[in-house]
């Protein structure tokens, strides 16, 4: 049938190339929704919605690394999804380009609007208007393997609080065996290291961007250099498996689950993986420390927005509003070990008595999220300057070159 159709189309084309009334459009009554690959509760949300509503949502999972490209192409092509769960750091870029529906009037009506996670709400704003609300809250922190800590004679009750203490713990754990390592990082994954490495800098009082996010401060802030040197030591001393240097994020969460890694930077998204799929993993959580102490976290996660041009904005908002209501927040989010989007729901039956969850949730209190429209080009792009700088500094040890290169390319991108 399609062959015949194709032939007819082709004939028509050959005859009259000018007139092309042939755009094939499907008129599916359902809503399309995109989510990047890291967000796992979304599937359950959509399934539950579809089972109880007439409107049906079709979920497409886009690899995190390709989300911006795909979304950009879809917007440019004029057929974006009806609902998009976007990494919160991209919201300014899409909102500033006028590609998201202004939902200020909807948001105003929410009785619990003030308890929605502030970092997400802030990133979802552009020039005083709301374009997105939170859908996944994901602070970064460090998980540590209590069994390995104890085997290495470390105090598992008091996990490391400075970089030196972390290094000592890693060295002790590395001694335990050929296949046991003190630490894990995914050094071929740009976003993973924005999420888990930047907080080391922040917790020490430094930053790679100026306070108003207008300039790069990589070269002038000495803490950046020291943090790179810290990670370089970890690599040089073999405190991470060699494969960590080429991991593109495939093992970002799962490497620690194997049980032979002492510590790893991670986030809320991974806690449910550890708890549900690896019940035997005996682990704890501590905040990402600064050089001499302190703590910081990357306030990450996803916001949910309605791309401009959809015909189903009302229905899309109905879905979004439902996801923030109490039942899914408790029975889907908390039940799966995900932090509820409304702060008053953090105290729930599922989180009671789990210190790890409360530590993880408290990471959000020290959470920080850069607000820049070029976040992807700077940090998350696999070919961006952030990852290149890290690899050259940490894996090759050329910290000076790396900093010069990072400063130059950051500046170039930010000046547009």
């Amino acid at each position, binding site marked *: 049938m399609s062959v015949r159709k194709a032939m007819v189309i*082709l004939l028509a084309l050959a005859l009259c190339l000018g007139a092309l009334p042939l755009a094939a459009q499907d008129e599916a009554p359902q809503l399309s929704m995109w989510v990047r690959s890291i967000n796992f509760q979304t599937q359950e949300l959509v399934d539950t919605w579809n089972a109880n509503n007439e409107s049906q949502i079709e979920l*497409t999972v886009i690899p995190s690394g390709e989300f911006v490209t795909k979304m950009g192409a879809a917007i440019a092509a004029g*057929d974006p999804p009806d609902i998009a769960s976007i990494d919160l750091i991209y919201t300014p870029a899409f909102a500033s380009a006028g590609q998201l529906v202004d939902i200020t009037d909807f948001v105003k009506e929410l009785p619990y609007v003030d308890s929605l996670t502030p970092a997400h709400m802030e990133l979802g704003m552009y020039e005083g208007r709301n374009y997105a609300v939170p859908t996944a809250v994901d602070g970064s922190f460090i998980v540590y393997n209590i069994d390995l800590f104890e085997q290495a004679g470390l105090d598992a009750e008091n996990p490391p609080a400075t970089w030196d203490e972390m290094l000592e713990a890693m060295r002790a754990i590395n001694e335990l065996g050929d296949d046991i390592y003190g630490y894990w990082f995914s050094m071929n994954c740009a976003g993973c290291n924005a999420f888990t490495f930047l907080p080391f800098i922040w917790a020490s009082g430094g930053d790679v961007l100026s306070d108003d996010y207008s300039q790069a401060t990589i070269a002038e802030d000495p803490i950046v250099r020291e943090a790179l040197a810290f990670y370089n030591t970890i690599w040089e001393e073999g405190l991470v498996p060699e494969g960590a240097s080429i991991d593109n994020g495939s093992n970002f969460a799962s490497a620690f689950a194997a049980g032979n890694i002492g510590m790893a930077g991670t986030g809320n998204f991974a806690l449910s993986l550890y708890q549900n799929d690896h019940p035997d993993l005996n682990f704890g959580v501590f905040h990402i420390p600064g050089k001499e102490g302190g703590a910081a976290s990357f306030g990450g996660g996803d916001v949910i927005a309605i791309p401009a041009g959809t015909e189903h904005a009302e229905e899309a908002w109905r879905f979004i509003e439902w996801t923030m209501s109490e039942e899914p927040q408790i029975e889907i989010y908390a039940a799966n070990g995900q932090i509820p989007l409304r702060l008053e729901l953090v105290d729930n039956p599922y989180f009671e008595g789990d210190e790890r969850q409360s530590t993880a949730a408290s990471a959000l209190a020290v959470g920080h999220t850069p607000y820049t429209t070029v976040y992807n080009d700077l940090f998350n792009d696999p070919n961006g300057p952030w990852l290149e700088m890290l690899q050259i500094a940490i894996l090759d040890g050329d910290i000076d070159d790396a900093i010069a290169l990072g400063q130059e390319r950051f500046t170039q991108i930010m000046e547009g």
Partner: protein
Amino acid sequence: MAAPSLHKALPSQSGLTQQDIRMLRRRALLALRYIILIVLALLFLFPIAWSFLNSIKLPAEALAVPPTYLPSQVSLENYEELTTYGKIGVAQHIYNSTVVAIITVLGSIVLSTLGGYGFARFNFPGKNLLFIMVLSTLMIPFQSILIPLFVMIVQVDLHNTLLGLALVYITFQLPFGIFLMRNSFLAVPLEIEESALLDGCSSLSVLYRLMLRLVLPGIVTVAIYAFINSWNEFLAALIFMTDQDNFTLPVFLTTIRYGIWGEVDWGALQAGVIVSIIPSLGIFLLLQRYYMDGLMGGAVKN
């Protein structure tokens, strides 16, 4: 000069005649040639064979670290998994690739034949200029005009459609196709056509009833190239298709590399590799002669 005379002078101690020695030497060389050929052939076949072997392992075995050499058990589970992969399943992507390939093949044949015939057999004002224009597009790699093509395809609302992608592919095929078909028509003796025309046939029916049969090898060549190139193309498909439902096979395969946790399903990926290799391999093996003719005709003889 010295060598042969020396041989002649030497009495063959082992009782072998001069001819025997030469024959033995030739045989030894031939054997050596075959040995080298066989070793090289095995090396060339290895990646495909290895991929196939892994695609018929059990999914768990295909993920084993370190890998096993031979499947402990033959299983089609990886292929079954592929049929439900990413909820849409591989069938949809095979369908997408097939539809795009068929439109590309038909479009390339029709346009190349018409254009080739026109340029080969007719005289009209501006003919040389137009032919040079068509030929000069051979110099333009499609990679350098993808950006405006994207803008244009979006303008006419053909982005993210199989037809839109096929139109782009037809474009990529045309310069080569026209060139090849023009040469095919030129190779047909003029007298055959003239007698038909004098018998009262119209130009179109001469083309349809007579010439097509004579230039069939050229048409087959154009078709094979159009099929294989469209079936294998990656970059344009990556850019023009945003909706997962419309991904062609090569783009779909790259998505197998990312599960929800970023893990790779290697068994299913290899099954996918095999599935996507089979059609172009099959067509090539069946119609090898035409493919090679095209390579020579398109690249060398002209």
